[in-house]
């Protein structure tokens, strides 16, 4: 089906928006496991598990919070992919350069 037949720019603003979309490419693509759950696969280095220790007394003691999540629920739809960026070692100015992770994550180097 030709998309152009379905929706066609009428005014100049619509034309500008269409032109913008033409040059758009995906800058990133999430890796998926290919199952119906489309679970993310792997993680990037900037999302290294943090160093913040887990103060809980229970097992695994002394481990960081994100990685304890990994241990406790890393199968099927319980997989826990959203580790926090490491604000101690790799990205000490995390709050300054990435105040909103959903918006500014590209700024993390």
């Amino acid at each position, binding site marked *: *089906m030709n*998309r152009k*037949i*379905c*929706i*066609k*720019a*009428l*005014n*100049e*603003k*619509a034309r*500008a*928006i*269409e032109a913008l*979309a033409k040059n*758009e490419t995906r800058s990133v693509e999430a890796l998926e496991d290919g199952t119906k759950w*489309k679970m993310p696969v792997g993680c990037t280095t900037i999302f290294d598990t943090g160093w913040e220790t887990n103060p809980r007394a229970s097992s695994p003691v002394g481990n960081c919070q994100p990685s304890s999540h990994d241990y406790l629920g890393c199968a099927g739809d319980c997989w826990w992919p959203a580790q926090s960026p490491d604000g101690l070692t790799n990205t000490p100015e995390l709050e300054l350069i990435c105040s909103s992770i*959903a918006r500014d994550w590209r700024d993390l180097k």
Partner: protein
Amino acid sequence: MIYTWADHHIFTVQGGATLFGVDHGSLFSIDETTQELLSRLGGKLSLNLAEESGADREILEGLRDARLLVPEGVKQKARPVDIEIGSVPLTTMVLEVAQECNLRCTYCYAEGGTYGKQANNMDTGTARAAVRQLIEGSRDQDRVTLVLFGGEPLLNMAAVRAAVDEAEIMSQLTGKKVFISLTTNASLLDSEIIDFIHQHRIAVAISLDGPADVQDANRPDAVGGGSYSRIVGQLDGLLKGASAAVAARVTLVPEQWSRIEEVFFHLMDLGFHEVGIAPVSPIRPELLPNAEHEERLLEGFSSLARVFVAAAKTGRILPLSNLIDLLARLHMGQTKSVSCGAGYGYLAVDVEGKFYLCHRLVGEESFCVGNLSGGPDAEKIGGIMKTITCGKEEMCGSCWARTLCSGGCHYENHLREKLLGIHKGSSCSFIRRWFQLGIEVYAEMKNAGLDEMLKKLEKRVKC
């Protein structure tokens, strides 16, 4: 990725549908399949494109590229834009050169031209100082507009001449282009004034309401006599050899709204370069229209719009300012974050050199925002803006026309809400239908391939 709908509105007309993207002022033509999809999925709060069927996904991707589907979390609630008052250069100044008038128009919002004060004229020093402030306040802008207004400005030709002279001196000194326009009832025009207007390339807006019976009923002189024949007698001289546009500016009371077409063609036949028609401001409760009046007004504009399109198809632009201006904005996809320039790039100066938010609010002390000696009071302007936009966020937030209208005329709102005690938004329905008419006319012109003609309109709104 999960998407959500950006605010949009669909206009269906015979032979197709037009989709309006509210945030960007974008207009798209859509086919029946897209229309069907929008009615089926348009109410869904979120959409995962990957889960939609192939055919739907294709259309949805088109809508995503048109920015009508946006990633979830990106969409923000529409809110009034907070513009720092002093940050906008001054580009238009209205000089109330005479706060008196020789006519006694029945609907005058300026109380016979005096704005509720003692009849008074601006002295030449004030006129010159105002022009200098306009030039200084315009900062890096290379074009400014000076409007000579009243009352009846021709009652004070000394100030008119001084302002024009100062504008030309300042233009020479700074290299800025100063557009000068004069709004007059034209009853005092004579050959000397006409020569002056031609020589200085002054654009003229003549307040003339149509055929003699309408004009004389609306705009009698001080002793109750008609003004039509006196004005029309001077028109030929003004139009002949005009070096800038001569426009008719019509005001009609609700009982006359059924005569719009007749009024327009009468004024066109008189040779005006443009005709703009305004429904009267309800300065008194009896001037407030009812639903039936508004219906007549829209019918009048609709039938003029049909004539406009028919003429456009033969290569002619009918000089109806209201529609031309709207089409130009729609063509460019221009959106507004404030309803007009009042208080930002636009100020009025009264005979005493006091600044007001706009020419219509002159004399309303709560809208006085400084004076020529101290300059515009940014803090006061900011305070007024906050007060008059209060509550709009809620009311306009869900309106599809918000980026075209942005709240409407401050003066009209002030009259309706403060003086007549009517609830906010009493003119919204009319305003929306007017924009809808414009969008329909625009789509029809586009579909008829009148691109070149629409391109010609661009210069009316290009900054």
